[in-house]
């Protein structure tokens, strides 16, 4: 099992979610965050040691079985881009997930995803 974490632009949230649903991925956890990506812009500030302003982003966490990882990634890539990709469009991170438990039933593992 893996945890797919995507940082996307807030205005793309609905589109990404619909894209995921189309890919039959329904379960999801979403939260607000802020971030700074693109190196070029931050370079500007370096001489002054000034922290660049943070930009608001959305974080999606999707726990999924191994064979769904690529499906999830593709669904996100498809919907999260502005035009054919703009700076700030975000990142996807994949981390290992050792265990998953459904609180309601106490099921564990792949079935609980």
């Amino acid at each position: 099992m893996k945890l797919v974490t995507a940082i996307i632009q807030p205005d793309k949230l609905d589109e990404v979610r619909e894209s995921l649903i189309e890919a039959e991925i329904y379960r999801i956890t979403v939260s607000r965050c802020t971030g700074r990506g693109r190196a070029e812009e931050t370079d500007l500030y370096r001489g002054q040691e000034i922290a660049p302003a943070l930009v608001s982003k959305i974080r999606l966490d999707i726990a999924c079985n191994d064979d769904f990882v690529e499906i999830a990634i593709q669904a996100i890539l498809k919907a999260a881009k502005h035009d054919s990709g703009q700076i700030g469009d975000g990142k996807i991170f994949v981390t290992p997930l050792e265990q998953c438990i459904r609180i309601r039933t106490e099921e564990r593992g792949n079935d609980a995803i």
Partner: protein
Amino acid sequence: MKWNLHRPLGALFGLVVMGSTTAGASETYPIDTGTTAWMLTSTAFVLLMVPGLAMFYGGLVRTKNVLGTMLHSFAAMAIIGVLWVVCGYAMCFGATRGWIGWDNSFFLLSGIDHGPNAYYQIEVNGATKYIPHLVFAMFQGKFAIITPALIAGAFAERVRFRGYCIFIALWSLLVYNPLAHWVWGGGFLTGKAIDFAGGTVIHISAGVAGLVTALYLGKRRGYPLATMTPNNLVMTLMGAGLLWVGWFGFNAGSSVSSGLLTAQALTVTQTAAAAGALTWMVLEALLHKKATSLGLVSGILAGLVVITPAAGDVMPGGAIVLGILASIICYGAINLKSKLGYDDSLDVLGIHGVAGIVGAVGLTFFLRSVPDHGFGLQLWYQIEGVLVSMTYAAIGTLILCVLVEKVFGFRLKKEDEMAGMDHSLHSEHGYGLLNLN
């Protein structure tokens, strides 16, 4: 030397020079300072309803649309605020030309700024007194501002800002002004239907216009399957508080006096609002075991709307009954909406339209004194007023909807709606605090 208004107090108790260019006018047209004071205050209170409405509506939409929704109220203040001075007052209260009124001297309010027409005659304690004509014009102007702002609740979260601005400008000129002229300004309904502070002209017309726009523009994406949680009920409560306060100006100011009638209007306004709120609370407690804050403020609004046409003519007991009826019927209407499935986002029809009708017709049963021409005829006048207002508002709104949509674009594009109005239309975010900034 009128510019020296703040006289030097060194010369204590010197003479304050008149600010009027018509020296001597004050003797000929004695101002009643008390009535003037109340009308000035009322005007300010009604203005307070605009941010109040912005807060009320703004709190009910989703986070991504909060500024866009509040701007609907503020833009009305800007646009109609100018239009009213330029020509709105002339169209409503100028000498009747049938469909509208007109008076050249009302253009830019220049003819009532000074000179004999600057004085508006009232009766105080049986004597003839005057208030500045301008204060009446400004008080009425606030009504013209608030009406289109009310409609905006029906199509919240899904219109373009430019389209909206053009729509309300046209709606104000072509729907509101004629209606106000007919009922209040000397048109063919004047003196027939009782509409103390605008049940017909304001709330019913806004409610119907809301329904028409909501139907024409279609549902929000996802409605009704996806629940659309209010982003800030706390702000909606604050807004309701300001609306209640502002409504005192709205209703009690409509007496254009500062006397018994004014007090009667204020009393029934307070009473109906409380009765409406209490009723909605009790209804929810009985039906769901839980009273909600949104319910309570909906009850406040229903009570305030229902008493608006009736404020000068019913007694406190009648106000309680009207408040109760309004909440029950509006509650039903909103539940019916969920069944019918059209998307009147913030229930402009369900509250303003329905409670306005209940008030306009229902007041006949609680009149302090039945007019000489009898109860039946008056009831008919009331119904006639409602029907005229509904028909005219519906047709006018539909035409404007089509026009604005085709020529300028009214409905928001799909991606812009998904991204939210604040981002796509205004490039701003309501709550920077949500992100580290």
